[in-house]
């Protein structure tokens, strides 16, 4: 594995690259605008059976028995599976590449064993000759449930009186195991300085509580999986996933197969945002295929996606800050409790690490809790847990700015983190661009132009996300016509085939169009972690750079052979190979390869964590108007400023920022899992789970600040996640300016805003 010891960022600035910073048309574009691109649900195979999943109608219930006989007798039904058909799970903890999970929990979430732990929890799977027959068969499976009282609220779940989800879950309290079971899975703490002393120094102390509802990633493509368990014992899975290799790991682990027996073919994926990292249908389809000897395709409907997959945790956050009259923040204390859902393991610690990360504060104490409740097991969602954390810190800082008589951007300038600043978790920042985003926001026409009119307000907020590195692989083969075929391991959810190919092209001095990128399956490309953590253009792009350097070395060899000189006597610049009077372009040399040693290919697998990943910062500005009679909020204008390190394909960087900001706006204003008292989600459709439509938004202006990340040859930083962090806080701050009341609970829907206006 080639590791990169922080290669210095390229000194090249704007315009000095030939490919990077341009906006070529994506290589997979035509297939996607003509409907030819094949997503998981589009797969057709001969002898294909169709599977459906039976789900628990109860939020919490003991499963006394399951009778599948009637279902098996329905003509067209070929097999039914329950948890009993799966190998028993031990206490093993599985590393899924991005995060870890207890195997028992992993299996327990695929098909419920003794207990159904949330409404929508999968209980059985059916394979039949048509989807309609499979759906009818679900109605013929009779499950004997003993309903148990559910607990849905994170704080209620923490109380000793709360119903227990797992009698074998003992709190890991700062490394010590508690003596009696509880719904609190884990307690972590970050400490810096001495908050007690810090608060003593403060001229004023501010303290507020915040709540956020569980929300879903909302990708438009429902989950899908097709499995074929061949007679030779090899299992092939076609699925729309953020990571073919993590699907392979999970499936092999759950079914207790050697990893080499499982091949995962990533189909095109219709959005993920973190939600398509865990497996749900894949193992069920696999076992159904083993039972029937035929390929089995399973699709979720939208309600199943809401009730049976992994949304992001609801949260309770209490935050306290001490400030000097100058606006300098001298101490911060935070208590964060996140809903893990039915099984432990929410990314709650990410919220802990982000909550005051943009600021240089001397004394910090942060406590975080991972709490199980009778809701779907949560998954990652775009900067997991950071948005609800930032709602608290960025709203409180707005309050402090007002008290200190300071402009909201200036107070962030005054307290802002820079290179060398140490976070609460102890890490010191390398070169970061937070202050630069504040400068750019301050200078933006949006911020300069006064906002006029009644019930209108402007808010700002900032956000931080680490960005991940992880492992990626790329293989590049030179074709005789001078093009390069590139196989990479990162499923392409937003144009990354192209942003990776552009980096390969930049190094080789060829055009982006001359690279033929392809996403490989688990048997055709080296190990690659998930498309997530804002890592692909950074990490898989780095692998492409390394692979290109490998190709370039081989090409030099070939040129040297051709010219009968030593390889080190061949110079290469911008794709032209030279020795004395001899010179060949990459294309020309490619055409001669068979005369001087044969075809050339290059390969690289990198562990991008080892280069020091560049963290991402964003500052957003929003103007909005509140209807005082109805409480409805209209977004008038939105500007998102972000340090992107180096924008490889600026259009797709802008797109990530616009999309992230829009998801944050939806989260702020309307999106939520709405539960009745029995723990049933009442709004599990796109009609009542209200994601923003085109009519709910203005254009989203973006400003790309480029402070190169030290760890990447081109200075790339992850850009996908941080834009979802500031919006709810920025909107809460703007609503305060508009109506004079601060809201501390998401969503800030019309009913809540109206209640605030009417003082209810």
């Amino acid at each position: 594995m080639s590791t990169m010891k922080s290669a210095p960022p390229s000194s090249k600035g704007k315009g000095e690259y030939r490919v990077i910073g341009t906006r070529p048309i994506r290589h997979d574009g035509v297939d996607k605008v003509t409907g030819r691109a094949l997503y998981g649900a589009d797969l057709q195979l001969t002898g294909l059976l169709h599977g459906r999943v039976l789900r628990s109608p109860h939020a919490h219930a003991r499963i006394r028995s399951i009778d599948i006989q009637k279902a098996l007798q329905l003509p067209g039904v070929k097999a039914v599976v329950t948890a009993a058909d799966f190998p028993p799970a031990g206490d093993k903890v599985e590393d899924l590449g991005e995060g870890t999970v207890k195997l028992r929990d992993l299996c327990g979430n695929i098909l419920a064993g003794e207990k159904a732990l949330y409404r929508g929890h999968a209980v059985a799977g059916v394979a039949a000759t048509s989807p309609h027959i499979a759906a009818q068969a679900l109605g013929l499976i009779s499950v004997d449930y003993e309903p148990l009282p559910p607990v849905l609220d994170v704080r209620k779940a923490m109380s000793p009186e709360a119903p227990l989800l797992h009698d074998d879950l003992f709190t890991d309290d700062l490394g010590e195991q508690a003596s009696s079971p509880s719904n609190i899975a884990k307690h972590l703490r970050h400490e810096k300085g001495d908050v007690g002393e810090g608060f003593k120094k403060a001229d004023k102390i501010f303290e507020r509580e915040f709540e956020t509802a569980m929300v879903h990633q909302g990708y438009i493509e429902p989950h899908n999986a097709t499995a074929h368990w061949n007679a030779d014992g090899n299992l092939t899975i076609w699925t729309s996933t953020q990571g073919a290799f993590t699907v392979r790991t999970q499936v092999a682990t759950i079914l207790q197969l050697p990893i080499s027996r499982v091949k995962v073919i990533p189909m095109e994926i219709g959005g993920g945002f973190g939600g398509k990292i865990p497996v749900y249908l894949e193992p069920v389809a696999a076992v159904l295929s083993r039972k029937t000897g035929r390929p089995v395709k399973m699709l979720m409907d939208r309600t199943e996606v809401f009730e049976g997959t992994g949304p992001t945790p609801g949260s309770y956050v209490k935050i306290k800050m001490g400030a000097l009259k100058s606006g300098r923040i001298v101490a911060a204390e935070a208590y964060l409790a996140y809903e893990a859902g039915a099984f432990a393991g929410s990314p709650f610690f990410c919220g802990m690490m982000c909550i005051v990360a943009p600021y240089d504060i001397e004394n910090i104490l942060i406590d975080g809790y991972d709490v199980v409740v009778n809701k779907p097991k949560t998954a990652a969602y775009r900067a997991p847990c950071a948005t609800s954390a930032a709602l608290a810190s960025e709203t409180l800082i707005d309050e402090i700015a007002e008290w200190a008589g300071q402009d909201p951007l200036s107070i962030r300038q005054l307290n802002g983190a820079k290179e060398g600043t140490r976070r609460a978790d102890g890490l010191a920042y390398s070169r970061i661009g937070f202050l630069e985003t504040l400068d750019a926001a301050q200078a933006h026409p949006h911020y300069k132009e006064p906002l006029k009119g009644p019930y209108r307000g402007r808010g700002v907020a900032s956000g931080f996300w680490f960005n991940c590195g992880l492992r990626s692989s790329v293989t590049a083969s030179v074709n005789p016509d001078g093009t390069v075929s590139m196989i990479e391991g990162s499923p392409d959810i937003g144009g990354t085939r192209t942003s990776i190919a552009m980096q390969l092209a930049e190094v080789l001095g060829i055009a982006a169009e001359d690279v033929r990128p392809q996403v490989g399956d688990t048997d055709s490309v080296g190990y690659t972690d998930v498309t997530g953590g804002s890592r692909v253009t950074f990490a898989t792009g780095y692998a492409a750079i390394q692979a290109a350097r490998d190709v370039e070395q081989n090409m030099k060899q070939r040129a040297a052979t051709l010219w009968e000189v030593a390889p080190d006597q061949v110079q290469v610049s911008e794709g032209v190979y030279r020795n004395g009077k001899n010179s060949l372009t990459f294309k020309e040399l490619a055409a001669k390869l068979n005369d001087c040693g044969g075809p050339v290919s290059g390969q690289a697998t990198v562990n991008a964590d080892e280069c020091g990943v560049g963290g991402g910062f964003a500052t957003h500005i929003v103007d909005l108007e509140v209807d005082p009679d109805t409480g409805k909020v209209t977004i008038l204008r939105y500007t998102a400023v972000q340090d992107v390190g180096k924008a490889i394909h600026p259009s797709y960087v802008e797109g990530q920022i616009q999309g992230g900001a829009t998801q944050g706006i939806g989260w702020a204003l309307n999106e939520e899992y709405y539960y009745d008292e029995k723990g049933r989600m009442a709004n599990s459709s796109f009609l009542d789970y209200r994601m923003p439509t085109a009519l709910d938004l203005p254009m989203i202006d973006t400003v790309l600040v480029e402070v190169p990340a030290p760890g990447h040859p081109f200075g790339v930083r992850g850009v996908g996640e941080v834009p979802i962090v500031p919006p709810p806080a920025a909107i809460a701050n703007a609503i305060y300016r508009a109506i004079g009341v601060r809201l501390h609970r998401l969503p800030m829907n019309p009913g809540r805003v109206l209640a605030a206006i009417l003082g209810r």
Partner: protein
Amino acid sequence: MAIVFIPSQLAKLTGGVRKVEASGRTLRDVIDSLERDYPGIRERLVEGDRLRPGLAAAVDNAFVGLLQPVEDTSEIHFLPALQGG
């Protein structure tokens, strides 16, 4: 000697000390020397020949494995392994 930042869940083992010095040519050596001074800390950090699942180690801001070389001036942190969407 490299500086090791002790996360709060391990502070009990170091008697509440949050920043300790330890020597070693690799991260594994450093953990061994920590084990000598603070018995029990190794099994909280290492499982078999790798870091415990869910745990990440940063040497001078880079997330690394046990065989990562450590300089005398290095700064070492143990953190939860990050995830993202």
